[in-house]
């Protein structure tokens, strides 16, 4: 924990100390390992093994030209269908042989791309060592706290030489969350609604116990929370009844689950959230927790839990955010799709919440 804090402090310091170097085109900064990375000029060929890195890097760089490789999972998960495929069609043309579904790098395939930099996770030295052994420059990203996510944008700013862009994106996020925090701060802390994120209810019932989203930003609590354990926890129906949440959220990645499946399940009908039709499918912007627009999820959840006043004019905010981050001009249909309005039709007052 202390080393993690140290890295963040070093990263923050590097921002203030090393920016002059950036102004001279050379960029020097510390990655999440605390390793000093120096680029004489912004890398022109970047390979990403971190699944969401192409999204973050593209957002900060405002173009995909410098991304020459990514892992196969990035391609299939984000760029073959859905909103990213619609907004950023050029991403699907990027070579996707840097790694398969996991993060073990295909060193030869990466070398073939002649990259100036590779973005890779730091949690296992074996993921980085083979790349550095062959002389590649690796920028390490660690997973997956709220601060880590902010750092992904900052680090991408250092790499691309676009600190202005990185700061603009971070500013949009911090201003939104600050406004939300003021509203949430006025709520009665002893009576916050309970929210369970459930991504499986068929052969297994699986809840998120140690997720990376800070639910306190939305003024809700997770009865299954366990910061010491794994991300997910498999439970039985009795445990669901014991928790009996006020609201159930279906994560955006649970593509084969929607609120209607909860409402149609006779056993789940006893749950308070199901009885009150407060089961909601997360919008598409929560599809990857590392994407720069993820802060919209906190606002969306606050609105679902406490009312539309917690996300006023939310559709316009979605349009503005995607314009800022991706330069995209979303259509009304795309905004509706992003909000999962169709899946959420049977949920309580969803259409009224997000007019």
């Amino acid at each position, binding site marked *: 924990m202390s080393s993690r804090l140290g890295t963040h402090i070093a990263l923050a310091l590097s921002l203030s100390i090393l920016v002059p170097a950036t102004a001279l085109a050379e960029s020097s900064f510390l990655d999440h390992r605390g390793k000093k990375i120096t680029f004489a000029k912004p890398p022109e060929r970047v390979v990403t093994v971190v699944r969401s890195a192409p999204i973050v890097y593209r957002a900060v760089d405002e173009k995909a030209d410098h991304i020459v490789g990514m892992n196969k*999972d990035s391609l299939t998960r984000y760029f073959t269908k859905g909103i990213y495929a619609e907004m950023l069609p050029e991403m699907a043309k990027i070579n996707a042989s840097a790694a*398969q*579904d*996991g993060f073990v790098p295909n060193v030869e395939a990466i070398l073939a791309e002649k990259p100036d930099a590779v973005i890779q996770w730091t949690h296992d030295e074996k993921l980085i060592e083979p790349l550095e052994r062959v002389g590649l420059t690796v920028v390490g990203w660690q997973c997956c706290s709220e601060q880590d996510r902010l750092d992904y944008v900052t680090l991408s700013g250092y790499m691309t030489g676009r600190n202005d862009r990185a700061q603009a994106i971070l500013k949009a996020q911090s201003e939104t969350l600050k406004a939300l925090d003021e509203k949430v701060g006025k709520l009665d802390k002893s009576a916050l609604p309970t929210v369970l994120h459930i*991504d*499986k209810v*068929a*052969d*297994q*019932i*699986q809840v998120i*116990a140690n997720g990376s989203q800070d639910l306190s930003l939305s003024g809700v609590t997770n009865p*299954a929370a366990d910061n010491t*354990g794994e991300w*997910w*926890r*498999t*439970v*039985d*129906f*009795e*445990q669901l*009844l*014991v928790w009996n949440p006020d609201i159930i959220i279906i994560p955006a*990645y*649970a593509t*084969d689950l929607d609120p209607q499946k909860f409402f149609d399940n*006779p*056993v789940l009908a*006893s749950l308070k959230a199901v009885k009150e039709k407060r089961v909601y499918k997360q919008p598409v912007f929560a599809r990857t927790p590392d994407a720069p627009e993820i802060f919209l999820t906190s606002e969306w959840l606050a609105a679902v839990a406490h009312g539309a006043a917690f996300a006023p004019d939310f559709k316009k905010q979605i349009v503005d955010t995607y314009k800022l981050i991706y330069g995209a001009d979303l259509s009304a249909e795309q905004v509706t799709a992003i909000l999962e309005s169709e899946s959420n039709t049977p949920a309580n007052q969803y259409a009224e919440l997000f007019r």
Partner: protein
Amino acid sequence: MPSSSAKAAAGETTEIRSRARLGSGFVLPALICLLVAVTLYSVTIGRYDLSVADVAYILIDNVHPLVTPYWDPVQEIVVEQVRVPRILAAIVIGFGLSMSGAALQGLFRNPLVDPGIIGVTSGAGFGGTLAILLGLQGYLLLTMAFLFGIGSVFLVKLLSTVRGRTSMLTLVLAGVVISAFFSAAISIAKLLADPFQKLPAITYWLMGSIASSNYLDVLLVAAAVVPSAIAIYLLRFQINILSLGEEKARALGAKVLLVQWIVLVASALISAGVVATSGIIGWVGLVIPHVARALVGADHQRLLPVSGVLGAIYLLLVDNLARTVTTAEIPLGIITALIGVPVFAVILRRLHAKGGWSGD
């Protein structure tokens, strides 16, 4: 059905080979009483707070209402739709795995044999894994697991039959080969699975759980276990003879090959049914028959039902632990392995001290 001479020979042999165990005739009734007690106790425990009286009134209300229902409908759902099917599943699965394990150990005269010996567990495991990988759930998953389990038996039969003849040694080796093949296939499927969604689902399923059992699941696993267990029990005298060795069994007039195949197919059905509904639950069919043998000896007339009932009690207790120890469900396979490994180590030491396994 066994011939009268074979039956008499088996009875005689058993009498010679069995140890004198005081009161072994009372073991089965005692275990049945214990099973009933554990079953009733199991209905009263769980994460949802219910008193024994609440559970009793809810259950009795189905037969003859004693009091005006005062309980919440949710409590009724917990008892009747969550706990009871799960308990029934544990009983049926524990019974089936233990009984087939006892039969196979007798058949192969080998204490290390369990229902997975003929590759069916790995085959069914791969079927379920493939279903999860393809995004199939519920009864599609169950069907695929069952079909792959049964398919693996036919593969074993195909590999082990040379010029129309099948030796047991070849059959066991073919089982090992098929098991290894499907284990490798499972590894490939896990490698291809989405590490955030499908891989955890596959891993959890492979470790075995009956957390989501409903009455249809119970019915399906019972459809595989009950007829197979009856078939095995009907062959109890023949299994006794085969446990003396194939040569002696043939000399005594037993239809060796037929008995072997019936027991193998019945065990395969049990394993495929169990894996399809609950994933892989190891060690039950390996360890419980040894405990049962220590209680009633090697006569399969007693050993088979005692193994079955003991297995039912054991898996019921294991499942009680799995659903009550923590808020999270613990996969059954983990607990059965944690208990089974040390118990089996003790058994092996005892066998070694005795100079090897003699079937009794």
